[in-house]
């Protein structure tokens, strides 16, 4: 486990030094959320009804635009062969990389969500449930996105291909995330929603690093 934490600390140090790389999804998230009231109007009942969907879709898009370059720094540096030659299984190294990506890119989003939730006149309980579903759902987004990023690591100009490739896989997370908040607004029990989202997240925790490792090994042998 010490390997995992030391790898994550190195990755955090690297992303912190490229300040711009983890700020973009956060700013994108805030700006797009602010666009909605400007475009849809500030009728509070309407806003609070569609707020969960907006926040979830924008979080999903924020992850999609930034996860494409998850392995780009390695690819340009040529340090992918470093990861491949290490005695540790590649999926552990990749999992550490995705975990550090989640800490730097998705956690700030979740911390900002309460602020945006209140801006959209969302009641406190729903904001809490929204944050919990984001906390549970965004790791799965990053993990599935990492598979696509690993497949496209060597290809120039792959900007728009990743969303098409990975978007269908995000649909169950989006459905359960938004409907959990809807259920919270109708005071229904939420355990079922969190159970299903947790199951999906842990399935992708088990599946995605291995598939990403396979994709990276294929990519390097290109």
């Amino acid at each position, binding site marked *: 486990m010490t390997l995992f934490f030391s790898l994550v600390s190195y990755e955090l*140090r690297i992303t912190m030094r*490229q300040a711009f790389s983890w700020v973009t999804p956060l700013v994108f998230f805030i700006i797009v959320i602010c666009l909605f009231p400007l475009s849809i109007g500030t009728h509070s009942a309407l806003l609070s009804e569609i707020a969960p969907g907006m926040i979830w879709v924008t979080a999903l898009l924020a992850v999609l635009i930034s996860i494409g370059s998850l392995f780009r720094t390695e690819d340009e*540096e040529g*340090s992918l*062969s*470093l*990861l491949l030659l*290490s*005695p540790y*299984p590649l999926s552990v190294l990749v999992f550490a990389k995705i975990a550090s990506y989640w800490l730097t890119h998705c956690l700030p989003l979740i911390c900002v969500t309460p602020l945006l939730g209140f801006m959209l006149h969302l009641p406190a309980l729903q904001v809490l449930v929204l944050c919990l579903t984001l906390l549970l759902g965004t790791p799965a987004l990053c993990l599935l996105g990492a598979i696509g990023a690993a497949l496209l690591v060597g290809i120039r100009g792959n900007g728009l291909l990743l969303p098409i490739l990975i978007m269908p896989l995000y649909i169950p997370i989006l459905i359960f995330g938004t409907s959990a908040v809807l259920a919270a607004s109708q005071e229904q029990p939420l355990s079922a929603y969190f159970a299903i989202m947790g199951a999906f997240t842990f399935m992708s925790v088990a599946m995605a690093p291995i598939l990403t490792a396979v994709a990276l090994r294929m990519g390097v042998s290109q």
Partner: protein
Amino acid sequence: MSRNNTLLFQGVSYALASGQVLSVRGANGIGKSTLLRILAGFIEPQQGSVSYDNQVIFQDVAAYQHGIHYLGHDNGVRQYLTVYENLTFYAVLNDRVLSTSQCNEVIQRVGLWAFRDTQALCLSAGQLRRLSLAKLLLRPAPFWILDEPTTALDDQGQQILADLINQQLQQNGMVVMATHQDIALTSKPNVLRLGS
């Protein structure tokens, strides 16, 4: 072996004994790097096989790759880490416990002591090459695969490289290099010419 359906080379076979150097020569684009990547186990050859102490490497690529050093054309150095951090990162990645004194000694050996705490981003190509050479010292490996190690190295750098290779040969290790310039080595290197 072919690279996106253009035939690179055929019928290359060579047996290298330990304690020897093989220098692969050939014009640019003839497939030297591809051959080295096949030796490193990154690419599977379309015909034929690579065996290391008479066991085909693709049976268990991971185990084989633990025992080798592969210095690629683009030196695998993390740009945003400093020289010291790069070496400790490499050590962590390869399960080596490295004390700061050992690390400093390696940095001095490679002559980057003045740049110990500067990010690799600000180093010149030659210095980056030396940093990737420093990685060879961190972990003893019987088999080295160096892809044009002399690029961007000045005289002092080439001297360091020659010392490293001589030391490796004394310890009965093997080295395969793809180079254009000759390096002053104690033992005469065998030459494999591609595309003759």
